[in-house]
């Protein structure tokens, strides 16, 4: 069962070949057996999952089931779950039990999905390797000496290792796409505003966006169908109809105009990855797509601009963690100042602190214009680059990451080297566009992801292109050794 896609499992449930309870038990057993070696889960909610599975079976029997009723899924531990610890990968929230569900969690509940547990992640989603988690790093199932990517590393590894059929992720600078690439799965970051941020713990509010991570584009479509939609509790949520993503999968790729930004294929991209990508692009061409070289001239500025905007927003978003109303509080504070400084100093890890400091500095008197305002202007230039590009092409294709999964510790000593692993994904967040990563092959034992970037609200097209590609290839069916 664990090798089946969500679409296949849903069909099996409907046909009565197995129950949601059996399915859930099977995944819980796999988690128990395999997760200690991978560390994907921060919390496994076995009892709750079994209860939800029974309820789903009743719903299936009653004939009022939706496409995801009875399907186990897992939530990145950044989404608030009522009654279940929501840690955000941080010591700060190690004991935090959210008194409400995130909209995304609520929507999966309403759809009748079964939550298996909460997935490990970089602390407050700040990281590209999952090494900043308070709960220890997640291991890449393809090579446990390598990182799974980040920040949604637990989500990507759990899907790759068949410890869940589908998981949620969040993507602020590549946090869905880069780990999807490193773990050989499919993930989509929707257009900013497509998925509600209510109850999704904020890192950088103007960049954060939740999305699905699964084995196939079809599964992502099924999950996104549940996640997407207007939410009046989120001022940045967009009130716009949600298309039928699964129905859109049947579309043709014939005549699709694909743009290849020359900035994505220059130096800095691993040669082997370039080769693998070229083969994938050839497949798309065979399907009828046309390929055009385009330019995104300001792409090189995306990482610098991002490392002003994201830390600035994070420095303010994370000010609420002060040891007063919830979360970690230091022992025996001697005064108010001590309470603040030590609760925050002890509750946050080094990378989170670095970003808070950078953000605080960038916003402080005398530096605002040089950093924050400048970065926002660059953001405008980058979004203009994309706007012009989408006048010529329908989809932009490139690598998701400049390399395959790297070794633990390889980049921890050099923050900038770590930041540059998101060099191809960050611009998409700055512009608020939808972006996707699709597995397209391997370099040695490690998977390679291809990034698809669409115009605003063009998720259906991205999913369609990815799905057509997956109809003629089988990378998405490969399983890491020991996980099949």
């Amino acid at each position, binding site marked *: 069962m664990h090798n089946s896609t969500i679409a296949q499992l849903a069909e099996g449930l409907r046909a009565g070949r197995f129950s949601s309870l059996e399915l859930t038990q099977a995944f819980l057993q796999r988690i128990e057996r395999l997760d200690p070696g991978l560390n994907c889960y921060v919390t496994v909610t076995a009892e709750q999952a079994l209860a939800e599975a029974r309820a789903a079976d009743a719903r299936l029997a009653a004939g009022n089931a939706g496409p995801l009723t009875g399907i186990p899924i897992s939530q990145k531990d950044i*989404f*608030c779950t009522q009654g279940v610890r*929501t840690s*955000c990968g941080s010591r700060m*929230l190690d004991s*935090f039990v*959210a*008194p*409400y569900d*995130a909209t995304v969690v609520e929507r999966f509940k309403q759809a009748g999905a079964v939550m298996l547990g909460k997935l490990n992640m970089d602390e407050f989603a700040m990281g590209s390797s999952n090494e900043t988690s308070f709960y220890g790093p997640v291991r890449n199932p393809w090579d446990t000496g390598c990182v799974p990517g980040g920040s949604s590393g637990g989500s990507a590894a759990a899907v790759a290792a068949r410890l869940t059929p589908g998981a949620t992720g969040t993507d602020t600078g590549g946090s869905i796409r880069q780990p999807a690439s490193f773990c050989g799965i499919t993930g989509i970051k929707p257009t900013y505003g497509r998925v509600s*941020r*209510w*109850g*999704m*713990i*904020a890192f*950088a*509010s*103007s960049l954060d966006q939740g999305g699905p991570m699964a084995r196939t584009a079809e599964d992502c479509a099924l999950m996104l169908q549940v996640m997407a939609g207007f939410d*009046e*509790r*989120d*001022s*940045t949520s967009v009130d716009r109809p949600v298309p039928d993503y699964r129905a859109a999968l049947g579309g043709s790729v014939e005549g699709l105009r694909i743009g290849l930004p020359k900035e994505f294929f220059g130096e800095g991209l691993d040669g082997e990855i370039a080769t693998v990508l070229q083969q994938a692009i050839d497949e798309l061409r065979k399907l009828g797509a046309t390929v055009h070289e385009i330019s995104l001239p300001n792409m090189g500025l995306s990482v610098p601009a991002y490392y002003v905007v994201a830390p*600035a*927003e994070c*420095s*303010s978003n*994370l*000010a*609420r963690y*002060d040891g*007063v*109303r*919830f979360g970690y509080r230091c022992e025996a504070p001697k005064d*108010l100042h001590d309470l*603040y400084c030590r609760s925050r100093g002890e509750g946050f890890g080094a990378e989170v602190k670095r970003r808070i400091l950078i953000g*605080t500095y960038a*916003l*402080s*008197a005398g530096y*605002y214009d040089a950093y*924050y305002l400048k970065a926002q202007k660059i953001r405008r230039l980058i979004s203009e680059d994309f706007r012009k590009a989408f006048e010529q092409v329908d989809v932009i294709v490139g690598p998701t990451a400049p390399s395959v999964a790297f070794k633990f510790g390889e980049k921890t000593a050099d923050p900038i080297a770590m930041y540059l692993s998101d060099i191809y994904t960050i611009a998409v967040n700055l512009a608020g566009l939808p972006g996707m990563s699709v597995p397209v092959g391997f370099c040695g034992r490690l998977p390679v992801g291809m990034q698809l970037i669409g115009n605003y609200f063009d998720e259906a097209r991205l999913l369609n292109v990815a799905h057509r590609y997956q109809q003629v290839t089988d990378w998405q069916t490969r399983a890491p050794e020991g996980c099949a």
Partner: protein
Amino acid sequence: MEWETVIGLEVHAQLATRSKIFSGAATAYGAEPNTQACAIDLGLPGVLPVLNREAVRMAVKFGLAIGATIAPVSVFARKNYFYPDLPKGYQISQYDLPVVATGQMTITVDGAVKTIGITRAHLEEDAGKSLHEDFHGSTGIDLNRAGTPLLEIVSEPDLRSAKEAVAYMKKLHALVRYLEICDGNMQEGSFRCDANVSVRRKGDSRFGTRAEIKNLNSFRFVERAINFEVERQIELIEGGGAVVQETRLYDSVKDETRSMRSKEEANDYRYFPDPDLLPLEIGAALIGEVRATLPELPDAKQQRFRSDYALSDYDAEVLTATRELADFYEAVVRSAGCDAKLCANWVMGDLSAALNEANLEITASRVDADRLAGLLQRIADDTISGKLAKQVFETMWQEGATADAIIEREGLRQITDSSAIEAIIDRIMADNPGQLAQYRAGKDKLFGFFVGQAMKATQGKANPQQLNELLKRKLDA
């Protein structure tokens, strides 16, 4: 050395919305601690703000009332600082693009009319409260107030004395209550201000260094705090010192201001646009909609009272001090259909005194406008004298009956029948031959004696004017 005082006020008016500016929690005053602080007000992880429409409408209403520009696009910004009553570690406010810009208001001080510029008014959220009673050496935090909408109204440094500052603040206070955007309750902190005070030598064109006095919540404190601060600054400068730009707190018990060093340390607020909120766009439609709800404003009403009711400047000002008082007065005039000046005297006189004594608002008056009008009609048609009317009013206030019922019951109807009054006068003259002789011999002041006797005999019901005339005629005959 002659000194000039320069004052600018930042008034914080709590907007009278039902729910908070960014959450659906109630804003009612006086609830048990933290029972009106929802997840958004507490700044729990993952929560997000959504703007209250009514708060925006109220800001627009204020802007229109002071002839200000309503910004077509304004932006919410985060003001970042750590304080226990500030749950998120930032206050959502407006910074370089406020919703209301450049309006003005006139004040009258000692007969002189002066225009005070209003730089801006912006929307922001209030903070919670720190309770300093001792909890084993801890401070308790109540976040019920956190997220209550505030309109911060910033004046130009156009005020030149504590008196002007108070006049301006009172005028604003009346205005926000007229507009029904703020309940104006200063004791509960619904209307409070920070005063920026500096002094300079007369004739100087440059402003002196200013001190900001925080959180003044009564007109009296505004006046006293400014006066103290002005003297302090003058003494300081004359003694060879210099004023330091700082935040000060007014201590009403000691009647002095003192430095708040704790607030001084952290004044790098790192403002930036709140990424959880989008730009606020206010179009012509909303402005038109709000404009249609604007009531007659205090200045216009005062003008109308002077012309329609022939009231003095003073009377018009007093009667328009609040919308409720003005409405009450007009209801009395309408109902009584008589002398508007008589109505004014009674509303400002006996009625106001009775309200004051009972500590009641005009809207809770025990004698309503119709019944007061009923009494005034009886004065106007000479049914009772003004003096007896006071007595009737007292009874009305206590019992709640109508004037007519009381007059009837107590037999207070004025005696206006000349023959009846003459008969009484004749009897008194006959009973007091000695006094009569003395009066007629030239002792004029005995006239009062006869008036007294006549009033006594009629239990005060004789029409005084009529009595005087008849008495004079008979005594002098």
